């Protein structure tokens, strides 16, 4: 069977002016509007460019499919969207899946920014997740780079995870097959 050249619609940057249009989904999932029956964790971090400078106009989306069951009243259960702040900071409060499949990430993440011409898919795992060793996703990532996908525990229910677009510790980004 001959392979045809893909006719997909290509990507373009989100640019610097997405905030007003994307705000409705940010509002729908901020902690004050979050109705969840499950336990939550807070994952905070900073998004950095190749100079180590914070990116202050990124948009970050997170999806916790198995956490959605705890949030039936949310407009988009299990989904979060947050713009990065003036210092590149972001934080995501997500429902911990009640019946987590071992090795599934806490959340699938998509990154958008001015100067980023194609959104980037990644995923976050909690470093103290007992299922890490059997994660089919982590096991497809070269061992030396797996740490870029691990959120570090900083307190009770609190974790730290940074996004680095370039450099030695560039976050692993995925092309889903």
């Amino acid at each position: 069977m001959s392979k045809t050249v893909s006719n997909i619609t290509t990507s373009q940057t989100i640019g610097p002016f997405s905030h007003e249009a994307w705000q409705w989904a940010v509002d729908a999932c901020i902690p004050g509007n979050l109705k969840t029956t499950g336990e939550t964790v807070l994952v905070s971090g900073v998004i950095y460019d190749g100079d180590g400078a914070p990116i202050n106009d990124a948009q970050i989306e997170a999806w916790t499919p198995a956490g959605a069951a705890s949030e039936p009243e949310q407009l988009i259960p299990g989904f979060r969207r947050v713009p990065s702040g003036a210092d590149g900071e972001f934080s995501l409060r997500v429902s911990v899946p009640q019946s987590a499949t071992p090795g599934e990430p806490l959340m699938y993440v998509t990154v958008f920014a001015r100067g980023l011409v194609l959104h980037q898919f990644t995923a976050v795992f909690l470093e103290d997740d007992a299922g890490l060793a059997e994660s089919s996703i982590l096991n497809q990532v070269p061992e030396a780079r797996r740490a870029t996908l691990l959120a570090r525990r900083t307190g009770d229910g609190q974790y730290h995870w940074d996004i680095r677009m370039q450099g030695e510790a560039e976050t692993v980004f995925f092309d889903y097959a």
Partner: protein
Amino acid sequence: MKFDPIEPGIYPELIYPAYKSTVKRGPQQAALRIEAPVPASQNIVVSSGILLPNDTDLTAHGASEPLGEKIVVTGRVLDEDGKPVRNSLLEVWQANSAGRYWHSRDQHAAPLDPNFHGLGKMMTDDEGRYRFVTIKPGPYPWGNHDKAWRPAHIHFSMFGNVYAQRLVTQMYFPNDPLFDYDPIFQSVPDEAARQRLISRFSLEHTVGSEMLGYEFDIVLRGRNATPMGL
């Protein structure tokens, strides 16, 4: 669904020095191709409560009519098999007719229009079709280089039917003289892929003496994982 690798040239170059902010922001390593059943088969579920009455009429967000040329934009969202992407969330945003965004960081010395914010969202129908009424956006300068002006465009954000279909892109208008000078448009190496970002004028979708029609079809990645008849 399954997602075939995309041939080089169809996506923009992640680091494209003519578009300066890509230099420190585009990943340097190739995306890691992995098998991940959840993003390839499931998606976020959106409540119908997100849709507001005027989300598909961007000319109806103020006390009166916005300035500029009223247009209607419509098209179908399809997957790589040509199947409609149904009941799928799509967001749009754009500058006003003077080339100014309703956004605190836009410093372009063109007027805001109190009757036009340039924000919309909608779901595709059973044929994958979307349709919204808006004002034709103006070109605007963006400081990337001397005389850097963006061709007029509307931003599109699409969620597809499975998570891995997510796409953000920009729709352009036919015969824009700025295409050759715009590094964002030119960051896509493949000529045919660039052309697919340009909408078509459509007499069929033109509404009487009210507004001209433009048609913009979108093909998201992904095809049926288990094709029949092979």
